[in-house]
């Protein structure tokens, strides 16, 4: 079976404070349909750069991306805008990721309107269904996004991504800023959506406990390179790289008893 996305030899350097930084160094991986691949690493390891390169928010210096059978990096202008809806992104801070002037309705209807995914008469119905998919009541539709809570906002961001009918959603630290109890709910919701809509996730996170809960495979990044890639269970149970070992050791764990 061909993978949904195939990334080969991606590289990106930029200058910062007069120093040349290799943000991405020969990065290659594939991601299948209905699969979740986690990208973990400390800050500055390049995982955010990678997610922004794949979603084409930034340009790369070299490498190839094949997405849904197409040369993703060759797409331009109107054609890129048309195909972009298949690859969506949910950001870390839901307050930052939605226009502060938007209402819940306008945020979710944007993709439907732009890509003509439903006739105007059905918009409210579509938005209401999407809100239902992310377990929000439809009367929230007419509220401004700054009036609702952080957890509700992240669900709205998810509904906006789902409105595009995507095949891949890049989750850029999408649950890191949420309170613990909300985080757990949103993860369950994302797993459920994956099963029902056949979605693939690229899940960027620095929290291995969350990664273990929802990712099939995990790639560990360090200084712009993928230093380890394998099934999540294997990476956590038998880490090979020093970075993976350090990340696992650093996860805070519940101490149930001081003297076991």
């Amino acid at each position, binding site marked *: 079976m061909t993978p949904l996305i195939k990334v080969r030899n991606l590289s990106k350097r930029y200058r910062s404070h007069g120093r040349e930084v290799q943000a991405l160094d020969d990065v290659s991986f594939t991601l299948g349909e209905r699969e979740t691949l986690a990208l973990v690493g400390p800050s500055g390891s390049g995982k955010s750069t990678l997610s922004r390169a794949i979603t084409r*928010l930034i340009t790369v210096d070299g490498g190839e991306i094949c997405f849904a059978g197409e040369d993703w990096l060759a797409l331009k202008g109107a054609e890129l805008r048309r195909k*972009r*809806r298949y690859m969506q992104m949910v950001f870390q801070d839901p307050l930052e*990721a939605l226009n502060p002037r938007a209402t819940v309705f306008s945020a979710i209807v944007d993709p439907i309107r732009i890509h003509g995914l439903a006739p105007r008469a059905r918009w409210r119905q579509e938005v209401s269904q999407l809100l239902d998919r992310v377990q929000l009541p439809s009367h929230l539709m007419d509220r401004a996004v700054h009036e609702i809570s952080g957890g509700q906002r992240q669900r709205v961001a998810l509904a906006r991504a789902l409105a595009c009918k995507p095949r891949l959603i890049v989750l850029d630290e999408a649950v890191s800023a949420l309170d613990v109890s909300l985080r757990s709910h949103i993860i369950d919701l994302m797993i459920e959506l994956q099963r029902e809509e056949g979605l693939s996730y690229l899940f960027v996170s620095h929290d291995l406990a969350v990664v273990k809960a929802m990712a099939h495979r995990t790639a560990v990044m360090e200084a712009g390179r993928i230093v380890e890639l394998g099934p999540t269970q294997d990476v956590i149970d038998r880490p090979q790289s020093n970075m993976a070992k350090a990340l696992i050791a650093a996860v805070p764990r519940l101490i149930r008893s001081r003297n076991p």
Partner: protein
Amino acid sequence: MSALRRFARSPEGVVGFVILLTLASVALLAPVLFPGDPLRIAGAPLIPPFTDPSFPLGTDRLGRDVLAGLVHGARASLIVGIAAALVAVLIGSIVGTLAGFAGGLIDEALMRVVDAFQIVPGFLLALAFVSVLQPSLPIVILAIALGAWTGPARLARAEVLSIRERDYVASARIIGMHPLEIALREVLPNALPPVLALSAVIVAGAVLTEAALSFLGLGDPNIVTWGSMIAEGRAVLRSAPYLSIIPGLALVATVVGTYLFGEGLTAMLSRREQHS
């Protein structure tokens, strides 16, 4: 309307609002309060204020009613001030948004034009512009706007530059929104509030510039303005100082009122940001 409540909570803003509301209603009601041409001769010349009940603020040296002039002058001052600020903010935010959004060569070119305008003092620019063309209300408005649009342009550009990097703009790109729609729907409305807060200062400046132009005889000669009234009074400054002082006080009230109103506006907008 929590934004209005925030405005109402700032005492400067409320005082400014009351002053401006008074001025605006006086200006709007001028034809009703003092029908006829305020420039016509209405009584004996140089009646001092508070002596003749039919001319509460007295008459000037041609016997024109000072109060009628003041009330009609409010129209000219407010129209010129507000219109000039509108034109300046409009040009400024379009140029600034374009520069900030396009970046690169377009940004460089536009900002050098802004520099060029900013180097010349606004008043001199207006003076030169009016003296070349015939002084009329639209020309005066344009002349004043010409010296005032650079502030909004710089501010709008700076705002756009920071908003361009925000996640919600990235999110708009990712759902496939057209760049023009991103500029107009996502960026511009969020870049505008600080520019609007600046506009109060521009109105105050424009009112003063207009008065100065009229004082120098470069205003529209067919309408009465506070500047021209001060200029008229200059000839009899020793014997009848009130002819210059009264329109001068009106000018001060307008500028202070506008400024305070602007403070209230800023408080309202910044508190909103704190809130979210």
